[in-house]
């Protein structure tokens, strides 16, 4: 049945230009096909007609709905059996909500955390809050150098009189690698619609669905199957798997407990890190890497100087790593040529886990991130070290700034 019938009459029904073309097109149309504007040149287009197949659409939709719910239920059950629990999505939109806290007045005197995944998983906001009385603003991003955030905060007068902890994971910080480098642009251009969508998702979807995680999106799941042919000449690398869980709207996070409970999953995560430990095609030469390291340190020095003028206390934090990952970092990013130079050039204090016994002896299931209970201990120990430095001012184990 048609959903609409033409009721419009052209002001000049006689006006049909290129009649022959139209006639050809009409002849080409078989019965059952709808005419479109393509078949009616040079005239006022009439009200469209849309056929609705004469079916019991209500019953068809109800059956489809039931089957959809059954399939989604099975999908949800599958991922929960794998160990996934519903959690807040670590999205660009969530990061934007935290970044805006500084714009909206919380930047005066705030403690802000930037860095990569180690700062995100390892530093526990509730513990810090319990000890200090203030909850930090968490802006660390996995797989992403904090340089963009450091420079952004350095240029933001709303951030002043506070404290900035900058997580340093050597391979990310000194290479400038930015897996999520577009987050700041997203934040600046985020539309009202995207803000509403983020709020809806965080309150009505994410708390209930375990499979609502980029790791378990259908194309990703299919792509990660073993059945695909490996193309000659290609050396495919596995993507980093899910490692974390966001537990609060302010991005409080910790390592996913599957890494602690499932040795095979932890071994998979280690093997994925190990893909990057050996030189491969596309990797920079030592000279190129040195140049990049120097550039990153120079950028950091400029930002630190700006922040210092606004009375922001900046502390670099070298979070723990272990096993093959630590060996790789020591080999490619040796401390003397990276961390020590960073502190020397910026004049900022730093806390390196290897300098403090209380920051060692933790369990890192996949070499890069602390087990959840150890992240609690680490946070408390780090807080005490930093506060001790504040009290001592210059004489503590924190300050590694050379004499000038």
């Amino acid at each position: 049945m048609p959903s609409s019938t033409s009721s419009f009459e052209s002001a000049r029904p006689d006006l049909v230009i290129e009649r022959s073309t139209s006639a050809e097109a009409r002849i080409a149309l078989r019965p059952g096909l709808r005419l479109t504007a393509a078949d009616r040149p040079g005239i006022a287009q009439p009200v469209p007609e849309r056929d609705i197949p004469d079916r019991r659409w209500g019953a068809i939709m109800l059956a489809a709905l039931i089957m959809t719910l059954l399939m989604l239920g099975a999908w949800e059950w599958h991922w929960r059996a794998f160990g996934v629990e519903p959690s807040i999505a670590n999205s660009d939109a969530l990061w934007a909500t935290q970044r805006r806290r500084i714009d909206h007045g919380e930047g005066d005197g705030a403690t802000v955390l930037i860095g990569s995944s180690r700062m995100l998983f390892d530093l526990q906001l509730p513990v810090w809050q319990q000890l200090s009385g203030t909850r930090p603003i968490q802006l660390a991003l996995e797989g992403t150098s904090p340089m963009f955030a450091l420079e952004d905060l350095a240029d933001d007068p709303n951030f002043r009189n506070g404290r900035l902890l900058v997580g340093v994971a050597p391979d990310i910080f000194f290479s400038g690698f930015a897996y999520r480098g577009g987050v700041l642009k997203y934040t600046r251009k985020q539309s009202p619609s995207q803000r509403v969508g983020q709020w809806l998702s965080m309150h009505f979807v994410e708390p209930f669905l375990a499979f609502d995680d980029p790791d378990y999106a259908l194309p990703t799941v299919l792509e990660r199957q073993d059945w695909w042919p490996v193309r000659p000449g290609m050396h495919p690398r596995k993507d980093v798997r899910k490692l974390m869980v966001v537990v609060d709207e302010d991005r409080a996070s910790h390592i996913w407990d599957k890494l602690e409970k499932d040795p095979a999953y932890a071994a998979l995560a280690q093997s994925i890190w190990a893909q990057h430990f050996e030189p491969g095609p596309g990797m920079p030469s030592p000279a190129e890497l040195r140049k990049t390291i120097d550039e990153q340190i120079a950028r950091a020095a400029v930002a630190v100087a700006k922040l210092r003028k606004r009375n922001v206390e900046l502390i670099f934090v070298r979070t723990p790593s272990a096993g093959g990952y630590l060996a790789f970092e020591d080999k490619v990013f040796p401390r003397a040529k990276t961390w020590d130079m960073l502190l020397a050039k910026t004049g900022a204090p730093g806390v390196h886990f290897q300098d403090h016994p209380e920051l060692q002896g933790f369990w890192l299931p996949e070499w890069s991130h602390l087990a959840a209970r150890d992240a609690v201990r680490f946070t408390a120990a780090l807080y005490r070290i930093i506060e001790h430095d504040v009290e001592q001012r210059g004489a503590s184990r924190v300050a590694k700034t050379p004499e000038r």
Partner: protein
Amino acid sequence: MVFNSLTFIAFFAIVLAIHSLPLAWKVRKVNLLVASYLFYSAWNPPFVILLWISTVVDWYAAQGLVKAQRPAARRAWMLLSVVANLGMLGYFKYGGFLLANFTALLASVGVAYHAPAPDIVLPVGISFYTFATMSYTLDVYLRRALPARNFLDYALFVTFFPHLVAGPIMRPTELVPQFEQPRRANRQQLFFGLALMTIGMFNKVVLADGFLAHAAEVVYDTDKIPGALDAWMGTLAFSGQIFCDFAGYSTIAIGVAMCLGFAMPDNFRFPYAAIGFSDFWRRWHITLSSWLRDYLYIPLGGNRHGPRRTYAALMGTMLLGGLWHGASWTFVAWGGLHGIYLSVERWLRKRFAGFRPNVWVLLAFGLITYALVNVTWVFFRAKTFSRAWTVLRGMFGTNDKAVPLLSGESLVVVAAIITGLVITHWLMRNRTLETVLARAPAAVLSCTWAVMAFAIIATQGSGNAFIYFQF
């Protein structure tokens, strides 16, 4: 807001509920108008002002046209509309492009001119709604239609959110009469509208974004040199992506309108089964191609002034049509290639007027058409001519030092989807979706609907904007 977002689902549910209330028709139209402005301002609220300007200018231009007696006065009112609309479009869409070309032109004659970066933000959908409002004034000017009886109906025609930002490009005569009588979808329209929305979402979220976009990005957004396999598969992936993205949008838009009780025109008719390029343009983005034909090609002379003028009109229309898609010479090249294809086809049809191909020859012509359309997509997708030439050389197997780019998984997935897409277009070539759905067993319809809905949710999507929003 984009259709494939939680925000839109919530917005649409509220609009549908309010539209279903037993309110006066005028009140319901005001509700739809307010909802449409909300829909648009959800991107960038200040740009609603541009929408208002376009709306008001064409309303008064059409009123002036009706009252004007002298041809010069009528022409002046028409020109007011054209200049205002094209002026806005020119500034916001082509300002940076024109400035860059002006600077390059001066540099070519030895004048070093460094203009400050204009930093103009493109208002979403401006190309679509300026064409819609211009068609209103032009139809009145050409005496094809009378102006709307009241401002509310006209404003709602311009702003009606299903077609506002990416079409189908509606003509006033298609939509304004629908606002004159009370409309509310019956159950059949509502359920079938939801089915169309599911089909559109499946095309966009699952096929375009989930499975095809990545392969096109790997081939086009890199400096690496592709061989024949990668260049072709990346381009085929884009051909599928842009169809599923844009046809998906149009199908959702038609479904949304149907749920509210309105009818919108077809925008696609299985274009990858086209035999020849005039056939392709009767199947691809129908509302744009017919707009260009009615308001550009025919006024330029069409086929009424001899072969030379016809070919010139054809090329001019396609070049400008290319430029409509984006402020870049690569889009002009895309339009130019289509213009050449259409001109050559026209010449061949006259030269071999008596030729009656059998079904296999027609099939071969169809596949040649699809292959040549893919050549044009290279210029559409590549961000620079340099990249376009690199991919084209790859497609013709003349790239030295080519490296494999696409994984085995990407090759298999793209090949499977594109093969399925092209076969579907051929099977549906002389059918409508509705005629097929009318005969399919109900169980098949339910299962297909469920699988699509599941795939949409399981793919998750990230609310990626539709490709045509940038135009």
